[in-house]
């Protein structure tokens, strides 16, 4: 299942050399249903049934019938948040055909509409999310306050309830030690920078998620414009830095990146952490034209299909050792193809 889910994600989008994906998330709540611990199973069911009724063309995935690995696999493909993957509640999601739109039901907020696209394409994401939002709004009563906007369980999401984020691969800026100051500057400008897979995590594999912090007192258009503008600037910085590093230390950099390619194509055991970092090197090498035998889409597919929960679920594995063996096997063959 998640092989299909990762499909849109492995595609190459605008500025796809640096930007892996864009996402827009709208937090919405129903006015007659309480939040968090006040919410009963009945309330959960009401949320699910109202949304399913409003959007009959979307496929419903019931979480009560899924294993923990299946849920975590959805989180690895960015369809749901890690918090939702761990949740024991009777929730579920609504997804469209290619899973680029997904509505999380009964998570922190009653409704979280997400639209995703490969590369830098925030406008497309916003358009898709708005479409779903308008349909749901017409058929339900959203919790909305004249001054505070869309009411959310957490006051940090009040107002537009919009979180727009862009996932970027920034190896050159990281290697040259510039990320710390970039993160500091972005934070002053109201943007948050997180590592791979959400809040608080380290930047595994030089992948950073950049998103807006402020949701109240600023319009949706302004949020997207500001994020898009700063992301475009970072893309240029990364390309420049990458070019400069390569010109200065051609052989040293080629050696480092090709060694990683060597490990990925020959190792017999690969842990997920090691793989993320090695794949980052190979990604960089493809962008620099050092490796020409495979493209970024092949690399992304190999990466997403071998993430821990996804590989556990797809191959029915039980231990980390089995995963490392299977991961190496899949990556060896897809990178040599």
């Amino acid at each position, binding site marked *: 299942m998640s092989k299909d889910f990762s499909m849109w994600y492995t595609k190459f989008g605008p500025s796809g050399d640096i930007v892996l994906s864009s996402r827009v998330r709208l937090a919405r709540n129903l006015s007659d249903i309480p939040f968090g611990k006040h919410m009963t199973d009945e309330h959960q069911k009401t949320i699910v049934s109202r949304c399913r009724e409003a959007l009959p063309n979307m496929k419903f995935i019931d979480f009560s019938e899924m294993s923990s*690995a299946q849920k975590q696999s959805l989180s*690895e493909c960015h369809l749901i948040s890690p918090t939702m993957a761990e949740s024991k509640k009777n929730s579920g999601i609504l997804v469209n055909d290619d899973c680029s739109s997904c509505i999380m039901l009964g998570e922190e907020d009653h409704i979280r509409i997400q639209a995703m696209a490969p590369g830098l394409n925030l406008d497309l994401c916003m358009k898709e999310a708005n479409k779903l939002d308008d349909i749901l709004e017409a058929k339900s009563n959203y919790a909305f306050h*004249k*001054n505070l906007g869309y009411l959310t369980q957490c006051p940090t999401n009040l*107002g537009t309830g919009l979180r727009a984020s862009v996932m970027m691969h920034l190896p050159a800026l990281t290697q040259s030690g510039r990320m710390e100051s970039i993160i500091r500057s972005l934070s002053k400008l109201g943007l948050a920078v997180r590592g791979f897979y959400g809040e608080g995590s380290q930047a595994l594999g030089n992948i950073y998620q950049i998103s807006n912090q402020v949701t109240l007192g600023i319009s949706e258009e302004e949020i997207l414009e500001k994020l898009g503008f700063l992301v475009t600037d970072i893309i240029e910085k990364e390309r420049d830095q990458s070019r400069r590093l390569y010109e200065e230390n051609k052989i040293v950099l080629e050696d480092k990146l090709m060694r990683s390619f060597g490990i990925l194509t020959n190792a017999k055991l690969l842990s997920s952490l090691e793989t993320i970092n090695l794949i980052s090197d190979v990604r960089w090498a493809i962008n620099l034209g050092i490796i020409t035998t495979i493209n970024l889409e092949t690399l992304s597919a190999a990466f997403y299909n071998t993430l821990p929960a996804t590989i556990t679920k797809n191959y029915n594995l039980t231990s980390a050792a089995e995963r490392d063996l299977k991961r190496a096997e899949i990556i060896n063959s897809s990178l040599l193809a």
Partner: protein
Amino acid sequence: MKCQKCNKNDATTHITEVINGIKTEMYLCSICAGESSDIFSFAPNIDHEFDSLFGSFCSAPAISKPLYEKSICKMCGTSISQFLKTGKPGCSNCYTVFEDLLSRPLKQIHGSTRHTGKTPTKLGEMFKTEDKIAALRAQLDAAVAQQNFEEAARLRDEIKSLRGEHK
């Protein structure tokens, strides 16, 4: 040693997590280790910390005792002390009940206390009518003060019809 998650099978896998500098170690069986993803041990959830921080933020302004006692959300039963403790509302109505307490933290977080983005179409119409009524009310008060009763009667009727439209 038994698995620390299911307490049934023998522990075969050792997992170390470092969250905010605090190291925790877990010994799990192969099944539980297979379920728990090695990636997510790197993504701690910061929500719990946020709750208490936000709560202390809200409690900062001095609250008079009568207000303290009265403020309970009628929809979900969240009291002001519960709200201050967690910083999280129990339902959407809490935002109306505790709105005054929120202005300070909201200004700190968002730099604003007023939404300027999208408004649900249905509610947008209602808000426009409300604004219109408020403006007419002010004109009505002024007309009464000037003893212009003819104008006051006209304004009253206009307000009445706007209200009726909205029912």
